[in-house]
């Protein structure tokens, strides 16, 4: 029994668990929106696009978050502009922009093999996060969560029906910029916990899981955040026993939860859908 409490005896473990839970929660909040718009891969794209920013920041001795954030914004802006002026499909644009940013990042790292540990960017390492970076991550997550809590309804209307949002006096473009700014910021934060490769799971899976459980947006948000925070907390905790690879554990946990709910969800689960279909056929046969 006491063995299970051992992780709580270490400051670095508590720090890792709290940061992971916060980041997991805020990413899950964003995932509820991204998934609905079919923009899920946007998170992935951003995470990769951030790499040159992080590398550049290390080389110049700036806070990594600043560089990452700048790169993320540049990439979003790039995607938006190419989308406006070209007739390429969105997925092609996303692919184009993020691979070029990522390639540029790798190039930077290989030319200036400084203190940057590419491994850290790509795999994340929340267990060894320095205090100043931990603080950056905490601030990003806390500010994002506050803004989202205040503005979730406006964002919902914009994501549901952009035109209508305008007729009730909202500003869809401003709100979308706000959203993508938060997404860039949170992707930066998540980079530290799970790494660039797995950020995409953090900004898709919890929302997709919650979507199977409810037809109401605010409940979807709550469930999504709960799933994201809980799996991240538990993932960080388990990584103490499994020795490292926090990101991998978190994402595996999220996937397990998703699969369970995909099968057993009360209304939209696979089994229930089958059962309902069978019942309706049986009923039909009985009456005829």
């Amino acid at each position, binding site marked *: 029994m006491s063995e299970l409490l051992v992780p709580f005896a270490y400051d670095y473990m508590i720090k890792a668990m709290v940061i992971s839970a916060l980041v997991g929660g805020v990413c899950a909040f964003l995932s509820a929106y991204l998934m*609905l718009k079919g923009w899920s891969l946007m998170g992935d794209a951003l995470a990769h696009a951030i790499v040159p920013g992080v590398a550049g920041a290390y080389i110049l001795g700036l806070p990594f978050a600043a560089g990452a954030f700048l790169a993320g914004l540049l990439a979003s802006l790039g995607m938006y502009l190419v989308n*406006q002026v070209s*007739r390429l499909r969105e997925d092609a644009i996303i692919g184009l922009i993020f691979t070029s940013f990522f390639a540029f990042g790798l190039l930077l790292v290989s030319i200036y093999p400084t203190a940057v540990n590419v491994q850290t960017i790509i795999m994340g390492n929340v267990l060894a996060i320095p205090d100043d970076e931990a603080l950056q991550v905490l601030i990003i997550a806390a500010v994002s969560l506050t803004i989202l809590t*205040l503005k979730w*309804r*406006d964002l*919902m*209307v914009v*994501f*549901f*029906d952009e*035109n*209508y949002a*305008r*007729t*009730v*006096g*909202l500003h869809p473009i401003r709100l979308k910029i706000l959203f993508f700014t938060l997404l860039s910021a949170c992707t930066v934060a998540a980079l530290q916990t799970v790494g660039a490769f797995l950020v995409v799971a953090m900004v898709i899976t919890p929302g997709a899981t919650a*979507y199977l459980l*409810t*037809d*109401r*947006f605010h409940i*979807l948000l709550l469930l999504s955040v709960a799933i994201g925070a809980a799996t991240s907390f538990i993932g960080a905790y388990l990584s103490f026993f499994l020795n490292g690879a926090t990101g991998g554990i978190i994402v595996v946990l999220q996937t397990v939860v998703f699969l369970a709910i995909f099968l057993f969800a009360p209304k939209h689960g696979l089994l229930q859908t089958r059962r309902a279909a069978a019942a309706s056929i049986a009923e039909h046969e009985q009456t005829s």
Partner: protein
Amino acid sequence: MKDKVSADISLNVSGVTVTYRNGNTGLRDASFSLSAGSICGLVGVNGSGKSTLFKAIMGFVTPTTGTVQIGGRPAAEAMRKNLVAYVPQAEEVDWNFPVLVEDVVMMGRYGHMGFLRTPSVHDRAMVTDALDRVRMTEYRDRQIGELSGGQKKRVFLARALAQEGKLILLDEPFTGVDVKTEHAIIDLMGELRDAGHLMLVSTHNLGSVPDFCDQVVLINQTVLAAGPTETTFTQSNLEEAFGGVLRHFRLDGTELHNDEDERGVTVLTDDERPVIFYGNKDRAHEPRRRQRDRDETGPPPEFMDDAS
């Protein structure tokens, strides 16, 4: 309580040209104006620019030339004042979005709420009332994708009601809707007209236009004719607006009558409800109004449950 400008709504479209990014001109030099207490039919074939005109009125696309004024104000300002309610074409809505019927109607109240958009008791009452007026109260807990075509339309109509817009724009409200619901929507629009609202309704359903529109705007890339239904919705204008797209039947006087009566019947149809002109060939005639169900023995049209 409300100032005069918002009490007497008007719509002024002058010289509006919309060119899309790909170079397509969706609408050319469109001008017309409408005032409060009216239902105006916006009639034209597919691709004639009806939806484009709506988008231009609401400022979703910026006209290359021309201006739109709503209640004497620019569109953006009018929308901030909640003067405009919009009922979108069904294809524009994401039906899988996790919102219930009542959530969608509540969105109509957002413009009236504060920074945090927390619904007040009054907001909730308006939603309940709007749902009641379109007979959707019993479906308020349904996810919006789980409704029939007519019910979906009614939800968005309720959202417009809850918003209390003075100018209501309806893009193809009768597409995919059964006749009963169509009549109920028409009746509701009549009530709104009597309450001083101004409605612009796009349709290519010709036959019902004379039933409920007191004004019409005929468009095909540009405004071909605009004015009161009696003088504007004529056979020759329609033939111009629809070109060769319409089916055209004519029965002359001799085929209809056994006497010397020269009047004939002309039926124009685009495969939905036809419009019928009766009278001498070479004169402009008023279109015939159809007899409505209520004039006959059946019950008055109401929003019926068309789910089952």
